């Protein structure tokens, strides 16, 4: 009798907790989204209205000219699609390269391992500012300017991401590999058949991180890309800012539109993210 009551009580408690959690979660989401929503609405405002006093959330007049102007701009569309493609390519490449490195340091033993590890990890602390000029000289000498490669290759190998994936790989139980090893699989095969499939959550995070890193970059593209047909999206949006002020309405509209493909991409891949995380959680 008491057991049954206890069970119901626990179930009720669980449901109540769940409601609270959901509410909390929504609040968090709102806090994170608020500036984005504000930016989207600001895109409908006239230039001087965006930062007007007193604080007004909604515009006096809803102008769609900012949005239509940008959508009709072929340069903008091209820039956005180009950046999207570049970011996806960058993310995939980053996953491939950094996961291989992570596996090697997590599982393999080899000569000079300690040295290689220090070599790679030290590179994580080299500040971008220090090598801004000299890396530009390097890519110039390699004739990489005004190409997609100059935006992808320099940053794709990342000790930080590699480090992160390695931490997860360290936690993979040895037992999982034993079976494959006994079957005579090579280390590389084990990587492909055991580690990669279960890397979903980690890959999602590194993928998103890499994608966003590429998507947001502005200084390097401005330095290395002068061909307007290859402008990256942040570089393009920067053309709305000048020495004396910004084209506020256009800037907000442009930024809001630029965020759309990324949001869509993330929403679409939610399924895989969820699946991946669920699988790992059940272990």
């Amino acid at each position, binding site marked *: 009798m008491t057991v049954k009551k206890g069970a119901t009580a626990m179930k009720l408690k669980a449901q109540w907790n769940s409601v609270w959690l959901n509410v909390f979660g929504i609040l968090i989401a709102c806090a994170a989204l608020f500036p984005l929503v504000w930016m989207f609405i600001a895109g409908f405002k006239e230039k001087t209205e965006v930062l007007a006093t007193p604080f007004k959330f909604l515009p006096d007049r809803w102008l769609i000219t900012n949005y239509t102007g940008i959508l009709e701009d072929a340069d903008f569309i091209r820039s956005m699609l180009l950046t999207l493609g570049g970011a996806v390519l960058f993310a995939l490449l980053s996953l491939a390269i950094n996961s291989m490195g992570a596996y090697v340091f997590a599982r393999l033993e080899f000569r000079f391992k300690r040295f290689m590890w220090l070599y790679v990890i030290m590179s994580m602390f080299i500040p971008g500012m220090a090598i801004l000029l000299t890396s530009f000289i390097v890519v110039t000498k390699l004739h990489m300017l005004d190409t997609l490669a100059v935006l992808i290759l320099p940053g794709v190998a990342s000790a930080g991401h590699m480090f992160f994936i390695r931490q997860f790989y360290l936690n993979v139980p040895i037992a999982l590999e034993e079976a494959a090893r006994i079957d005579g699989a090579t280390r590389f095969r084990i990587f492909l058949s055991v580690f990669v499939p279960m890397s979903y959550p980690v890959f999602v995070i590194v993928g998103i991180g890499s994608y966003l890193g590429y998507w947001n970059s502005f200084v390097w593209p401005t330095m290395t890309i002068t*061909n307007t047909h290859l402008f990256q999206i942040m570089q393009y949006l*920067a053309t709305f800012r000048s020495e004396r002020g910004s084209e506020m309405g256009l800037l907000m509209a442009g930024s809001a539109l630029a965020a759309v493909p990324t949001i869509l991409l993330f929403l679409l891949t939610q399924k895989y993210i969820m699946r991946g995380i669920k699988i790992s959680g059940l272990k």
Partner: protein
Amino acid sequence: MQERKGKVYSLAVTTLLTLSMVLSACGSSNSGNDNSAGSPNNNAANSAEPTVSADNAAANDGKSEVPGEKVSLEFWANKFEPTTDAWFKKWTDEFNKTHENIQIKLTIVPGDAWAQKLKAAQAAGKAPDIMTMSYGNIAPAAKLGQIQPLNDLMDPGVFNDLYDNVKDFVSVKGTYYAYPKLVEPSAVLYYRKDLFQAAGLDPEKPPVTWDELLDYGKKLTQKGIFGLATAQTAADLGWSSWGLQFNSAGHLPVTDDWSKADVDNDGFRALLNFYKTAYESGIMPKQALSAYADATPFGQGKVAMEISGSWSIGLFRNDFKNMLDKIGVAPMPSIDGDQTKPTATLGGWSLVVDGKSKHAKEAADYISWLLAGDPQIMIDYFKTSQFSKFSPRKSVDEAMNQDPQASSDPWRKLIAEKVIPYAKAEPIYTYDISLAFATAIESAMKGESVDKALQKAEKDINDIVAKQNLAGTNPKN
């Protein structure tokens, strides 16, 4: 099963890597900075130049191409107002159309990334042939060989067309290194005539002394409106206070030979006290409502008096048309009311030719055509900027005075007659010194005693002089 997955994975990685390699080859590069088939020492006559600045053949220094060779030049312009950007594009296109042999590729670079982009390009030997440069940077750049002398590349007549004080901005000891495009005084007083009236002040009599300015500020401050807006952060004060440094002390915070700080004097004490009082009296917002260069808060009615540069006229005329009849324009007040003392510095932009440019002659030709040629081109610029900018050339001013729009503009007249003649040149020493002095002003505003602030500035400036070995290195001394 594993085999298949393995193959897919390897295939994917290989594809991605190959794609990247391929991409490194693709991507058009039409930045024709590499020297095309130029015959270096060909003294053949210059290519067809249907411009005002003729007689270029005489100035030919042997770097020109054989007529008929197409030369492509890179031109980087700093990003300014949209009207300026449009003007550059329009006239560059026009030049390209009328000059078959010289094609200019214009890139407008946002201010945020200008320094990195330029310096990296210079480091890699890929600096643009032509670029915009502000007056303060010209002498230091010339000293380091970053820009080329123009005396032999351009018709001397174009330099005679400049006002005397402007000649000094673009030359070092007689050699010209840049051609100026515009001058704009850094400080002008904008005030709300209607608010003056409401506060019992005569709208036709703006303040002329610092004390009056502070006094008016108090009378105009009310709920929701501040009496005065001016620079209040070190970054803004660094350059916007130069005019008042001249006004109060007659000189800058460092000696002419750059050997030591020159800070301990009553003039600077008065200057710091002025800013300190302005801030502490409550007539200014405690946090700047915008950067000094951006007069939007005034346009939005948040402040009754604003000190900003002459370019703000353009802002008001473009974006705040309904305020125009309420706005009054006057010179920045002087410490003692003497309006012949400088209250502003004359800032502005010029075009220069890169020190390593392989097509210096063509670059100079473009600059001559654009800035020193047909006055109508420049008049177009001054019109689209709403007469908020001023010409460094006598011929252009003469032509503009014939123009009904230009000659009837009272604000233009006021600044041209009352501000520009007395404005001084910007300093050319390292910006660190200006920042050290500006930090003193800001700390005085935020509570530090004037004496202590000046003492720190003196120490800091002397440190800078010592560390950077500045003594005796003034190119103009």
